[in-house]
């Protein structure tokens, strides 16, 4: 853990070396989130409420997935640039070091420009939590926390699969964006807005609705208490992700000399 913070501060310092550019990156990433918020705002402005949801409830759901995504992106960014690591043979160096591979990949790169987004996301959650008029209790607060934590673990799992695929294709595959940027973009609204098919997909295949739609029903007092457990249950998703990663490593043949 100490080693991790060491890496963390190194990355932070190296990005701060070009302060102007760093702040512009932060502003750019913040702007993307603000755009998404503006999108929600414009739709609410035009339509009043959205289906069965009030503005606060929509924002709560959006804030959770957004924060989760940015946490995952900030810390697991190493997997995002993984195709480069494999192609350039840098992975060889990782294999020979006496530390866990996942740990090392995580330490390779971090995206500090996501930090302001995490703050903004938390603010959105707080605002949504107040505006939705939910009567907060300790179990409900815990469910909310588990939504964010499990959500970022799910995204982490997707990154892991993405990296595992790089062992086979050498090139990042664009369609994985469906599971990262796509899920993040479309989580602007609770997943049932898109119809039953999408809700089923995001529950059973890529269980993002298990950290957003279902527990949200519990928080709003519309669903059964078991829905509050769904974020934790969704973590089954990490098992196939981990297996894919193991398979990828076994398939790895060095490119270097």
């Amino acid at each position, binding site marked *: 853990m100490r080693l991790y913070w060491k890496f963390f501060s190194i990355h932070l310092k190296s990005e701060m070396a070009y302060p102007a550019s760093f702040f512009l990156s932060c502003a750019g990433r913040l702007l993307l989130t603000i755009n998404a918020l*503006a999108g929600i705002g*414009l739709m609410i402005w035009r339509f009043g409420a959205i289906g069965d949801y009030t503005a606060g409830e929509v924002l709560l759901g959006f804030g959770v997935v957004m924060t989760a995504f940015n946490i995952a992106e900030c810390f697991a960014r190493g997997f995002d640039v993984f195709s480069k690591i494999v192609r350039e043979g840098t992975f060889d160096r990782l294999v020979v070091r006496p530390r866990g591979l996942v740990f090392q990949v995580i330490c390779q790169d971090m995206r500090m420009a996501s930090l302001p987004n995490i703050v903004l996301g938390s603010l959105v959650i707080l605002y949504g939590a107040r505006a939705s008029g939910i009567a907060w209790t300790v179990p409900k607060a815990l469910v909310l926390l588990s939504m964010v934590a499990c959500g970022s673990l799910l995204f982490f799992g997707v990154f892991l699969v993405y990296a595992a695929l790089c062992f086979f294709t050498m090139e990042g595959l664009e369609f994985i964006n*469906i599971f990262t940027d796509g899920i993040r973009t479309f989580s602007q609204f609770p997943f049932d807005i898109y119809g039953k098919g999408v809700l089923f997909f995001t529950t059973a295949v890529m269980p993002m609705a298990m950290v957003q739609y279902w527990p949200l029903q519990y928080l709003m007092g519309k669903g059964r208490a078991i829905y509050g457990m769904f974020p934790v249950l969704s973590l089954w998703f990490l098992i196939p992700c981990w297996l894919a990663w193991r398979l990828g490593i076994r398939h790895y043949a060095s490119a270097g000399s």
Partner: protein
Amino acid sequence: MRQYTSFFRIHFLAGLQYRAAAFAGFFTQLFWGLMEVLLFRAFYRYAPERLPMDMQALSSYIWIQQGTLSIWNLFGWERELFQAVQTGSVAYELTRPTDLYAMWSARGLAGRLSKTMTRIIPVLVVSSLLPAPYGLRLTISFPVFLAFLFSMALTLWLCVAMCMLCYSLTFYMTDYRGIFTFVPAVAELLSGDLLPLPFFPPVLRKIAELSPFGSLQNVPLRIFGGDIGGVGILRAVGLQVFWCLCVTALGYALMNRGLRRAVIAGG
């Protein structure tokens, strides 16, 4: 001139090579389009009278938007060119007896066109098979279609010119990543990528439409959907031409000034 066309051909063909990437891109675009249509369908069912565009026009907007992603996507620039400026390898390019601006523009055009070629047909075919208000609008008059094509060509030009302007700006900065994230983020909102511009409140909509970003995908997509028609087409296309000329001139001037000042270290 011949050197530029052959450079264009090389990059065009190179872009067609990656079939797996094209296939993956096709699925991504299809998924994206489908999700957007589903989203707007929910609003359409909820309160159809509050939708500022006809559902059919909106669906056409979304499908053509997905099919032509590579034409207007400001995120789609080439990292290599930024890095060429940053690392100084741009010096190699300068030893060639060609104009850098034209060369890189040809490269941008080629890359974007070849990516579009591999995607647009399947996306349009699938979307035209969808049921009525959610698929692609197929009844379009020939003059409007020509106006659409012309406007889309201007979009491509403007997008390449904007990218060139950003590459040029790198000559004046030490790190490119800032521009790399900031400009597309602004464009995402103002170009109608996130939400078609008619959804905006009046003042914001006016600002977005007049800004250079509003002359990107916004114009051809809305011409196709029938949302911009008649004299509106002339006005919108005129504005597109204006921005194309301005951005190209500015980018060209900045690049040449940057090249004159640039000091390349190393031997």
